[in-house]
């Protein structure tokens, strides 16, 4: 019965393919990074609704075929081949983890399709090739900002804590490089295995260095545990500084994170505020991670470029993306591409967690 209903609704809602502009997205909806992937999907969903409410792309409704990568490189490549060879999309958004983004984008580039990176911050993304764009600032951009910010707080010696994955490696190495360039020192870098039941050992180890501050970045559940245990061990008497603050504190109890410093994406700009409200209205909560905004901006930037080009063909969109990407007001702030088509500017917020919530410093 349910299957029949589903089939009936699908037939009713099905729009002939030619009557819409279709692009693809490959994100992790299952597997270890499903939380971030689901958040990217939410951003994409809101963007598609807004684009279509404003008349769609080239006068036709926009459709984004969202495929699950499962966090597995082979599945992501399956999905990319399907989108290119079967659905014949001109552009694909994705993925999240750089180990998947790189091979996937390499394939898209060979096929001459547009790739829009909305989640990987590895500097290697820069080398993919002439049809690959990033709406997320790569490591170099965010680490420079947080290094300068941390030194300005008066901290000279810090310990960096992050997950032992591609993101954590990139974040910690990038931070160390930038921080030491401007005269700070990183006493130690602790990369923890995700999903542990306790991080006391790591925290005690980190505390032994007696740093001026801890610089950390962690995903929801891990971050919640780290924050709780650092509170219990009184390690939080030393200042804590979070890279992507809302992601680090989303699942944490307020009393454990009050007093922390950090940086996060700027959702305060003219477009960001509206997006934040749309997200809250649709999903009944604040941002789960920092990644929904990139999914949103990726779709919006594509739509703007295709409308400007008057075509959804990759070559035309590519040229228009460079044009639009001179200065585009996205939800995550102004998006401007450098010569390598990577986002060079990203306004971040300097924040502090007060008793009442986030405060701007």
């Amino acid at each position, binding site marked *: 019965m349910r299957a029949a209903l589903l089939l009936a609704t699908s037939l009713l809602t099905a729009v002939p393919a030619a009557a819409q502009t279709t692009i693809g997205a490959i994100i992790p909806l299952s597997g270890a990074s499903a939380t971030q992937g689901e958040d990217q999907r939410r951003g994409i969903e809101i963007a598609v609704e807004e684009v279509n409410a404003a008349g769609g792309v080239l006068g036709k409704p926009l459709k984004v075929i969202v495929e699950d990568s499962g966090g597995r490189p082979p599945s992501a490549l399956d999905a990319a081949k399907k989108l290119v060879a079967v659905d014949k999309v001109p552009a694909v958004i994705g993925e999240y*983890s750089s180990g998947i983004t790189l091979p996937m984008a390499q394939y898209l580039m060979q096929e001459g399709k547009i790739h829009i990176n909305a989640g990987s911050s590895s500097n290697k993304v820069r080398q993919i090739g002439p049809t690959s764009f990033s709406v997320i600032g790569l490591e170099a951009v965010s680490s420079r900002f947080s290094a300068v910010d941390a030194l300005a707080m008066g901290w000279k010696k810090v310990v960096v804590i992050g997950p032992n994955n591609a993101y954590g490696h990139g974040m910690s190495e990038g931070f160390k490089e930038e921080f030491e360039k401007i005269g700070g020192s990183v006493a130690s870098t602790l990369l923890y295995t995700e999903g542990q039941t306790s991080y006391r050992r790591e925290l005690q180890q980190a505390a032994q260095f007696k740093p001026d501050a801890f610089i950390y970045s962690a995903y929801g559940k891990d971050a919640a545990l780290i924050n709780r245990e650092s509170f219990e061990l009184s390690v939080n008497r030393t200042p804590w500084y979070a890279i992507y603050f809302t992601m680090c504190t989303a699942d944490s109890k307020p009393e454990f994170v009050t007093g922390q410093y950090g940086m996060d994406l700027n959702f305060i700009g003219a477009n960001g505020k509206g997006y934040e409200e749309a997200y809250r209205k649709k999903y009944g909560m604040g941002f789960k991670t920092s990644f929904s905004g990139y999914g949103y901006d990726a779709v919006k930037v594509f739509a703007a470029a295709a409308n400007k080009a008057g075509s959804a063909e990759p070559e035309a969109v590519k040229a228009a993306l460079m044009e639009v990407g001179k200065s585009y007001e996205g939800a995550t702030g102004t998006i401007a591409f450098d010569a390598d088509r990577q986002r060079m500017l990203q306004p971040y917020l300097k924040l502090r967690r007060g008793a009442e919530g986030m405060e701007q410093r």
Partner: protein
Amino acid sequence: MFEFSLHVATIAALYGLLALSLNLQTGFAGLVNFGQIALFGCGTYGAALAFNNQFGPVVGLLLGLVLVSLVALFFARLGRSLGSDYWGIATLAIGQILLTIATNETWLTGGAQGISGLPQLFTGSTRLQGHLILFSVTLALLAATWWLFHRLTQSKFGLSLRLMREEPQFAASLGYDLDGLRRSAMLVAAVPAALSGFLFAHYMTFVGPDQLFSTETFVVWTMVVIGGLGSHAGVVVGAILTQMLFAAVPFAKDFFALPSEYVAAMRLTLIGGGLLGFLLLRPQGLIPEKVGSIRG
């Protein structure tokens, strides 16, 4: 559509090699290997390390084979002192240790960021032609491995492997050299797994620790269980079916206009449920092992 099918078929054949390898260990020799992906990883990292140090694919292939032989011998060595279930746990642990090394020894392996930019092995006049050659080579390898394993398991060696699986103490009392059997079985089984990894690495153009999570071992296990433990034809069919199922889910989603987030869960349910269903209802798999088919 042709290009997509070619891709699915290539991946299926690469998984077929892994399934044949696991089946020789588990289905015939009774070596319950939960670290199968480590053998595959020797192939991928062999290719990647050679590439990273400016050596050609031939060196990568040889390096992969050397690595996999060492790991296989180590696995076999462990088998001397451990019962089969404990051995299974130990293989899982070794897989994890190798994964940890791949993640953390950044100077050697590129760490969590991996090594990217590996060249395609075969470049025809068009990319499709290159892909066709790769598929033919993979298919030929699969057929050769199948034939070889079939011959091996039909021989006296195969019979002794099965005896070791069923009654290890009895086999030992008859004078069979169990250590030697285990060593040979592991070495022979490791080669196609490493070859699969080597081809996969150049096909994906990227090698990283994400490819070596233990869940990948269980994907291969699913294929073997569905196909039929102890049957070469069975496990190849299992690999093809599972890969086709993986590839078909996105089309089912488009056809029924299902939301993507349900589809992700559905794929997991299909794999997990399918495995459970087979274990409960048809533990011998689609094509069961033929007992008494060897004259030795």
